[in-house]
């Protein structure tokens, strides 16, 4: 393995500066006193205060939050089922079409997905609004969940599942008692991914939404088109803060869970070994 050269360090540093500088500047200028976003005049939190009185914005945030929670939860269930079908049943009719429908939405331009969703809702006569946005988000985020969960299922020791089935567990019981606990971190991170994607989406929501269901990105977009203002910087900073906290908590939880699991496995192994070496008298007598 070669050494980590100065060139390697420099290219990483430049890359990260490029990735983070714009976000840092955005956050810094949300605390700027001046209305002119690019001229620094002093520290102030007044733009955060004005947000709280912006009822339209608060309504949009509430819509977005509800859509996000509902669609992420539905997408997690559907995506996990899809991941199970793909990794556990290697042969079934139409598998190629199925895996195609899982992977295609990952790269499909959003304008196409959005337009096709809208035309479906019109064709079946569903009024556009809160529920249509939720359905559309469920559909495109479930594919991301499926991919995340599937990669965890791929590296899963299937012999424990087989053991549970041999011992008489039904497939459903096997799933809830054996498979789900192991893949839970992936399922949870799938949920978080689906939630952030839903929070973030502008294009699909704009197509699928109707009057009365304006999401936060739609509201931000209509303001951004009018120019850069410190209020938008403030909203964006709050959103970045929420996401950063979420990611941090998720990382800590998975890490803790992983450590706990390793500890448990070691303890079980140690106990098994000590029993094998000195069997307890009851077992030996029986």
């Amino acid at each position, binding site marked *: 393995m070669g050494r980590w050269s100065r060139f390697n360090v420099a290219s*990483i540093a430049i890359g990260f500066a490029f990735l983070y500088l714009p976000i840092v500047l955005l956050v810094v200028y949300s605390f700027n006193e001046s209305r002119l976003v690019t001229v620094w005049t002093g520290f102030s939190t007044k733009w955060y205060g004005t947000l709280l009185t912006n009822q339209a914005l608060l309504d949009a945030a509430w819509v977005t939050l509800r859509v996000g929670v509902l669609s992420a939860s539905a997408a997690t269930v559907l995506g996990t089922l899809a991941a199970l079908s793909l990794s556990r049943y290697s042969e079934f009719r139409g598998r190629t079409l*199925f895996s195609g429908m899982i992977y295609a939405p990952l790269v499909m331009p959003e*304008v196409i997905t959005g337009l096709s969703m809208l035309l479906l809702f019109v064709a079946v006569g569903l009024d556009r609004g809160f529920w249509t946005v939720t359905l559309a988000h469920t559909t495109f985020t479930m594919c991301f969940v499926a991919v995340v969960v599937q990669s965890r299922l791929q*590296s899963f020791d299937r012999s424990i599942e087989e053991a549970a089935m041999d011992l008489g567990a*039904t497939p459903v019981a096997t799933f809830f008692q054996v498979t789900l606990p192991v893949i839970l971190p992936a399922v949870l991170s799938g949920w978080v991914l689906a939630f952030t994607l839903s929070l973030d989406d*502008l*294009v699909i929501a704009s197509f699928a939404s109707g009057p009365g269901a304006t999401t936060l990105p739609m509201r931000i977009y209509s303001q951004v088109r009018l120019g850069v203002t410190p209020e938008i910087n403030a909203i964006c900073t709050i959103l*970045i803060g929420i996401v950063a906290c979420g990611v941090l908590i998720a990382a800590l939880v998975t890490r803790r869970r992983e450590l706990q699991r390793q500890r448990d496995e070691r303890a079980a192994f140690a106990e098994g070994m000590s029993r094998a070496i000195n069997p307890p008298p009851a077992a030996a007598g029986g």
Partner: protein
Amino acid sequence: MQRAISAVTRRLVILIPYGWLLFFFLIPFLIVLRISMSTSAVAMPPYTPVFDWSEGWARIRSALSELSFDNYVWLAGDPLYLNAYLSSLWIALVSTALTLLIAYPMAYGMAKAPTTLRPTLVMLVILPFWTSFLIRVYAWIGILKPEGLFNQFLLSMGVIREPLIILNTNWAIYIGIVYCYLPFMVLPLYSALEKMDHSLTEAALDLGCTPIQAFWRVTFPLSLPGVIAGCLLVFIPAVGEFVIPDLLGGSETLMIGRTLWNEFNGNRDWPVSSAVAVVLLLLLVVPIMLFQTAQARAERAEREGR
């Protein structure tokens, strides 16, 4: 008995997500296809109706005979659309190449980083992806404006005398796409480079290759699956990108995602926007198929590798 339950479970596990995707993903495309062949009408919805199932087979047959390719003829005849398609493909191509140029050294450096540092570096690449796309595009407006931070910086350094006009040009779009899609390129490259057996490079060096030759003859060819996956992950969505050209591009920048949006929301011409979407999809069919084969191959390799 258990076998019967098992069969029922299996069927349900497959059918629920399958049915959902058929109804909410595949059928909508068929509707888009159908509407792209109908004529525009002043009504709500603004097109002549789709099939009316209640009248049975005869009605479907007559509906089929009503299909028209007028919208496609119209698209082909109007240079606006042709230019929009071509310039979308071109902008996506240039941006993908630029992204690869920036991402490769980064992924290479990450793969050579000390093992303890790597998870943190990967985390740092993924983190911006969690922040809103719209916010990240918006952040660049304040930077690239004529009186924005980038120009202020260059002016104060004395590099330039007059502010550069970057916002509302194609350069702003390139920067936006490279910035937003960089993680999609870095991650597959990193996972290809990290898996690589470094003794191969050492062997090439021992056998007299210069480091640069060793890179082009050994490292780069071995990282090709990552390069292909990354380029497709950037190229395909970039072709249909809407937010970036709309916020960073100029009024004369034509990109097809934006054209479709305007056709739909501005002109309210649903049949033409459907035809625009169908042609865009046709353009992307080959790259999407390539992406799916690459995914399926990776999936299979992972399954057989264990």
